């Protein structure tokens, strides 16, 4: 009998079984539930009636400051108030309110997930927490039920292995590599699958850069994206995890349905073109496309390394006079580190706006909206129509490429500035 992948082993353990196989349906105990704007879930609770509390006050996390950051109208202000009241009423202990950050970075940074944990979330980017070897999967509407039962059902996913070795060219970042993988696997190439990211390049990345890979797995349709825990993971988790944990590793003879090897040294800077995140081209093919807004941040670009990369380009340079640059740190801790390294000053000197941490202008929430027909380039994960308006073409790229476009006012190969 063959060995098992991390995804299979975590789901077996969480469902109390010796082993599970791809395709099988299992019901598992959930270690963490993430939500950013659970107003409709609390409305569900009212409709169900008689809800005493959530299943475990320690395991449900609400990051109201993710979207409902500085509410700009009465409706959003009322929604934020309703969420705060609901957290109290249903015994939810962890509420991250305005200014604390993007919920996906917070879940990992604040130790609400750990290697081997099962997490579900009411946000399609919940796959993010696979960066530390947790099995994390979006469930959205069903989180109402998970909050009451503490359980969720999964179809055990077959696993696709992605191996990334070698050193990238200067100016090529984890986002470029992840964007290339997304393009290769496609928007539904990992539907109901797990994707596991491995190789010396992945092991050399910090946790936030690994998160770009696990998070973008959802753009391939995946159930979860995982990185096997290593020394970097265990060092990161030290003193952070809210539970003692036993990491889960692959069996040496784990079975994969497919393997993709990425030749990193050959990879050029990549860019996703509208209207879908998997439509990816080399940046040079788009060179000269004019932009109105550049955005460094979002759950694939708000990490400290992202800020360092963007600042490499922007230090001593000015943002193009017809471009707005918005910089959104992932969390308050990341903002604190930026202050220590003087990066906020770099962005301000360049003519950019640094906001407090939240989810950012990835869609029309709160601040940073686009006018009809305006063009944005950003480090965030999505560019589908209907997020920032129906006709607001949006390009997705690395912090280097985004910062370079902010300086030139046009999409530009960032390597000329490095």
């Amino acid at each position: 009998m063959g060995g098992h992948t991390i995804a299979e082993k975590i789901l077996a353990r969480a469902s109390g079984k010796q082993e599970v196989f791809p395709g099988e349906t299992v019901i598992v105990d959930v270690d963490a539930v993430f939500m950013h704007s659970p107003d409709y879930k609390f409305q569900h609770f009212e409709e169900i009636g008689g809800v005493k509390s959530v299943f475990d006050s320690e395991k449900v996390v609400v990051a109201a400051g993710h979207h409902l950051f500085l509410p700009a109208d009465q409706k959003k202000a009322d929604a934020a108030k309703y969420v705060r009241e609901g957290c109290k009423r249903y015994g939810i202990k962890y509420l991250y309110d305005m200014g604390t950050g993007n919920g996906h970075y917070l879940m990992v940074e604040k130790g609400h997930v750990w290697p081997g944990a099962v997490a579900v979330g009411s946000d399609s980017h919940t796959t993010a927490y696979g960066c530390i070897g947790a099995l994390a999967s979006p469930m959205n509407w069903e989180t109402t039920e998970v909050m009451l039962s503490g359980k969720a059902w999964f179809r055990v996913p077959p696993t696709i292995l992605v191996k990334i070795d070698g050193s990238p060219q200067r100016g090529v970042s984890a986002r470029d590599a992840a964007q290339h993988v997304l393009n290769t696997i496609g928007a539904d190439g990992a539907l109901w699958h797990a994707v596991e990211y491995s190789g010396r390049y992945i092991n050399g990345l910090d946790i936030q850069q690994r998160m770009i890979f696990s998070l973008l797995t959802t753009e391939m349709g995946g159930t979860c994206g995982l990185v096997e825990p290593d020394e970097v993971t265990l060092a990161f988790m030290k003193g952070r995890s809210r539970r003692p944990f036993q990491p889960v590793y692959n069996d040496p003879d784990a079975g994969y349905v497919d393997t993709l090897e990425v030749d990193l040294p050959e990879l050029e800077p990549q860019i996703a073109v509208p209207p879908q995140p998997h439509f990816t081209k080399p940046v040079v093919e788009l060179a000269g496309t004019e932009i109105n807004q550049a955005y460094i941040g979002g759950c694939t670009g708000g990490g400290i390394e992202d800020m360092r990369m963007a600042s490499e380009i922007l230090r001593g340079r000015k943002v193009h006079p017809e471009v707005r640059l918005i910089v959104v740190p992932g969390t308050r801790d990341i903002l604190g580190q930026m202050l220590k390294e003087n990066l906020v000053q770099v962005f301000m000197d360049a003519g950019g706006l640094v906001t407090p941490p939240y989810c950012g202008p990835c869609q029309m929430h709160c601040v940073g909206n686009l006018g009809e027909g305006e063009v944005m380039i950003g480090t965030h994960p999505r560019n589908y129509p209907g997020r920032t308006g129906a006709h607001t073409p949006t390009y997705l790229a690395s912090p280097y490429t985004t910062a370079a476009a902010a300086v030139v006012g046009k999409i530009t190969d960032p390597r000329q500035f490095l």
Partner: protein
Amino acid sequence: MTATKGRAWTFGDHINTESILTTGRERDLESAKAHVLEYYDPEFPKKVQPGDFIVAGRNFGASSGRQAGRVLKAKGVKAVLCDSAGRVFYRNTWNMALPVLQCAGLRDKVEKGDELEVDIEQGTIKILKTGEILKTDETPAILMEIYRAGGMLEWIKSRRHLYKTLEPDLNQ
């Protein structure tokens, strides 16, 4: 008799949930209904009739896990029929008691306005113009159970004694 007849509205591959429920309209169902899927077919929000079906290609309901199915249901769409559906959209929408039936190759056989007869319990789609009957992928048993109960909320209410987080009897 669980079969139901209706007209098809056709869409392509990777239709995203933000085009079904646009950002900014999440807390305004009437406005969401007035703009549903207009990016891909401006006629759809104006002319879709209760009982109609969506027939789409691969990965319908890609992207965000927002309550997109709720808008389709509110417009009276009877079922979403597609080559395949986005995972979260699929789970969400069955939980709203709006069926999503997957059948690879379906999209190529149907044109906009075609009459279909769909049997949700049997998992069959009959294309009336040709008489061809297609068998859809099996729906997970738990989703069929939730669907038959009238959706997730009704399903929870029907088994509330199993939850230690709920008062067992609302009348006490």
